[in-house]
């Protein structure tokens, strides 16, 4: 039997991989997608419509599993979905909380859905403030791809005319709740923006997908596909085209190269048989997410690529950036005490946000460079976790829990780190996963600039609380690095092959038939979330790949 050679192998089926699969299958390419774990079944795996009392442990999880949980999204509702078997390590002094979803669709199954475009201010940040490097593209080049992505996935928002937040094509915004109206008034008084977020949640039927029903448990998966995920939006059509073969439980190990050092295929472990399998193609697209993609490249050592494939620059794994996440301040609205419940959390969504307002006109007007964004979170939630702020017991205690139910408010910061030599991924010299693949090792510390943003955000949001008539209850804590799932930078794009891993199209400088389609190509992480930009950049890379393969 002659060996089959696909047009393209895509490692990963999340935002980046899913987009590549979608676009290439549409263009008639024969695609083999490798996915590290199983397919999810929305009927069984998405427990988003279950009440706590439908769950064996009421959503608090089996205590035995709770000990191994990787954080707030890894819970009884998502049991069996997040990756626990494949290990990673951290260098001494590094903490890293890391929820990885290897199931088909990856993290798009559960993502936060905030979908702001990057801007010229982001791309030209180095020119503006002198730190690090500019992105190798302009906003005008990428804008049409954002528009096409917005049409595909559906993003709800409004036109806002803000320098750092270019407007796109939007579905009607989500409505403002009581807490939004109150905070909007407060924000006006102190001159900071409070606006509808750009959120990929369908406020009306869109592109064959039903409008959201606002059940509030999006982070546990959507059984109606009312927000974008690749298994709902891209993969079914791609499979129907007859051009796609998805291999599940196929854990990519390394890129296989030919004698000239070009990509020939991928070696993977079949997790069901534990056997190593090789699959071959004319092109390989790595879209395994920022850190995993770096791990695959670094583990792809050969005579031609002794430090890992496409790593002649030595930059694979370097320049790791992340968002600092954490509740900056907490408070409550006395004006809502004892009011009837209102469906505040019905989207579990970022209905509104405070988009970056710092360093816009003058890039050096704050003590820190660049900027951060803030998401408010509050109102009637599920469990009244504020009970521990109330003393006592009995009828008075019970009444106070009820009275405070509509009142909690908190602010969650999204502050980007800047690149530094000390934040990077390499391969652990001794630790391997159960399949014998050397583990990724993380080296990461918050930088001073980001911590200044945290302090700035604390003050701004405390001010906002006061201006909104709310009472301040305290400052929160910084989450562990990795929590945001917005890692960027391990395969940065740039024009100079000596300094960057890929060119401005996501094609590796060293290996012309090897492409990277995830946030690892982003030179830094900006104040915005990554998914919509991964989609836009991957769409652009897909079409560049198609162009390169035209005979």
């Amino acid at each position, binding site marked *: 039997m002659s060996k089959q050679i696909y047009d393209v192998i895509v490692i990963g089926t999340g935002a980046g991989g899913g987009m590549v699969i979608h676009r290439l299958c549409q263009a008639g390419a024969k695609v083999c997608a490798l996915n590290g774990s199983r397919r999810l079944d929305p009927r069984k795996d998405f427990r988003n419509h279950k009440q706590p*009392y439908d769950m064996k442990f009421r959503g608090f999880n089996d*205590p035995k599993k709770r000990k191994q949980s990787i954080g707030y999204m890894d819970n009884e509702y998502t049991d069996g979905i997040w990756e626990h078997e494949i290990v990673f390590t951290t260098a001494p002094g590094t903490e890293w909380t890391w929820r990885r979803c290897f199931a088909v669709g990856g993290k798009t199954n559960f993502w936060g859905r905030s979908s702001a475009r990057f801007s010229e201010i982001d791309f030209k940040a180095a020119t503006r403030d002198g730190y690090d490097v500019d992105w190798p593209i302009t906003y005008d080049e990428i804008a049409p791809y954002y528009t096409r992505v917005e049409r595909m996935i559906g993003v709800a928002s409004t036109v806002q005319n803000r320098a750092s937040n270019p407007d796109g094509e939007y579905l009607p915004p989500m*409505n403002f709740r009581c807490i939004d*109206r109150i905070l909007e008034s407060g924000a006006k008084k102190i001159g900071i923006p409070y606006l509808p977020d750009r959120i990929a949640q369908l*406020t009306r039927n869109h592109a064959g997908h039903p409008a959201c029903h*606002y059940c509030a448990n999006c982070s546990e998966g959507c059984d109606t596909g009312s927000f974008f995920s690749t298994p709902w939006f891209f993969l079914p059509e791609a499979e129907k085209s007859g051009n796609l073969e998805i291999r599940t439980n196929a854990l990519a190990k390394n890129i296989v190269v030919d004698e000239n050092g070009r990509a020939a295929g991928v070696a993977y472990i079949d997790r069901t048989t534990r056997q190593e399998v090789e699959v071959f193609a004319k092109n390989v697209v790595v879209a395994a997410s920022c850190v995993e993609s770096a791990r695959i490249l670094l583990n792809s050592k050969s005579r031609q690529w002794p430090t890992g494939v496409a790593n002649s620059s030595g930059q694979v794994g370097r320049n790791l950036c992340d968002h600092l996440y954490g509740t900056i301040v907490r408070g409550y609205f006395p004006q809502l005490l004892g009011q009837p419940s*209102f469906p505040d959390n019905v989207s579990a969504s970022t209905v509104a946000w405070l988009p970056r307002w710092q360093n816009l006109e003058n890039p050096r007007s704050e003590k820190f460079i660049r900027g951060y964004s803030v998401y408010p979170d509050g109102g009637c939630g599920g469990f009244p976790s504020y009970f521990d702020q109330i003393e006592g*017991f009995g009828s008075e205690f019970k009444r106070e829990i009820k009275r405070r139910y509509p009142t909690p408010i908190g602010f969650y910061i999204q502050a980007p780190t800047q690149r530094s030599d000390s934040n990077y991924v390499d391969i652990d010299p001794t630790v391997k996963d159960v399949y014998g693949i050397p583990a990724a090792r993380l080296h990461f510390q918050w930088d001073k600039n980001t911590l200044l943003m945290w302090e700035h955000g604390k003050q701004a949001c405390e001010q906002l609380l006061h201006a909104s008539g709310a009472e301040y209850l305290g400052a929160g804590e910084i989450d562990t690095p990795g929590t945001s799932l917005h890692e960027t930078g391990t395969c940065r794009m740039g024009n100079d092959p000596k300094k960057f891993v890929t060119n401005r199209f996501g094609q590796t400088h060293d290996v012309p038939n090897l492409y990277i389609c995830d946030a690892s190509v982003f030179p830094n992480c900006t104040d915005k979330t990554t998914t919509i930009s991964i989609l836009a950049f991957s769409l652009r890379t897909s079409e560049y790949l198609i162009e390169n393969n035209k005979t």
Partner: protein
Amino acid sequence: MLAKVAAMSQFGGFSRWICAAEHAHTENAPKPRPATYTPQFFTPAEYKIIDQSTELIIPNDGTPGARDAGVSEFIDFMVAHDDDIQYRFRTGVAWLDAFATENYGSGFSDISTAQQQALLRRLAYRDQQFPTEIQGQEFFKLLREYTVMGYYTSRIGLEQLDYPGLKLYSASPECPHKDDPEHRHLAPPRF
């Protein structure tokens, strides 16, 4: 529905609120909960203390309390599955029982409700606490936490909060107080 049935077969005590949720399937509903619940972890004497103390923490005072929501069954189930808190619950209940005996000459379940409340007040309110009773204060904190966990994840407890999630809405809900953006002139508190 299948998952609900599975949950019931694992833990009959949940039947009360699980079945209440399923009007459409009453013909399949299991029999009502047995009058006496057999604890998985606590001894009958311990369980009685848990039952009485949690009802004091969230009482039935015209609206349902901890007992109505099956809180002591929830606590027994959680503790039975959690090696890490079993010791704290066992010694805590024993401490509370000894505390009652020391003050009133009888165990916690045999003293009056007023006496039980007086004991809990000494553990619950900072201005009534004694430094020598830290163990009891810590146990009360744990017990209160589990009572809240059990009550406000039950159907009954969530109904008390009028929990607005997990319902279906045709549009994203909008603030109804258009003329009062700062919400300073709302109707008087209902609760």
